[in-house]
């Protein structure tokens, strides 16, 4: 079945450093979504990318969808302690309304 892998599984950075998480699928994705889950919280929708090669920015966050629509990345510039949490990518399962969630990348930021 459709699987979405993320790397790295875990990363800790010093505040001010950059951070990138990568999302990879063996199949072409109709769209890719990113969610953030703070410790003890629930996943919160960040953004959706639909077009091949699409790039979107939200302040210090840059989201990219690969040309082949099989991978995506989330880059955070100059991390802050408020960026701490687990970042999940997700994509709709083929021909259904279900979302397939990636394995997640847990980000720890040290002040």
């Amino acid at each position, binding site marked *: 079945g459709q699987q979405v892998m993320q790397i790295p599984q875990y990363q800790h950075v010093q505040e001010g450093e950059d951070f990138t998480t990568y999302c990879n699928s063996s199949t072409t994705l109709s769209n890719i979504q990113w969610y953030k889950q703070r410790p003890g*919280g629930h996943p919160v929708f960040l953004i959706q990318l639909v077009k091949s090669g699409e790039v979107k920015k939200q302040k210090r966050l840059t989201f990219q969808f690969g040309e082949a629509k099989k991978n995506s990345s989330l880059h955070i510039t100059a991390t802050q302690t408020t960026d701490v949490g687990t970042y999940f990518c997700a994509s*709709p399962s083929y021909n259904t309304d279900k979302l397939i*969630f990636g394995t*997640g990348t847990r980000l720890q930021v040290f002040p």
Partner: protein
Amino acid sequence: SAVISQKPSRDICQRGTSLTIQCQVDSQVTMMFWYRQQPGQSLTLIATANQGSEATYESGFVIDKFPISRPNLTFSTLTVSNMSPEDSSIYLCSAAEADTQYFGPGTRLTVL
């Protein structure tokens, strides 16, 4: 975006008992989903709660263990039946608007 509430927020239960989790959405939505999340893990879809028909369960989850109700477009319940310690987890409901999903705060279940 939809605002979702869940209750209870947490519970500690004895093995062999059942717990019903309620999920309320502040607007009418077509699709609602129930997930399970173990600490430090990703989300595992239990089932899709269909309004007016039986829920659609994912592989490894069965109706007898996780009966779901969806009486209208704003409400759903998930029951965890005949609980064992392996059922200890966080249970999340979500509502879909277009392709994206909005999650409730979750129910943290501990089974002793």
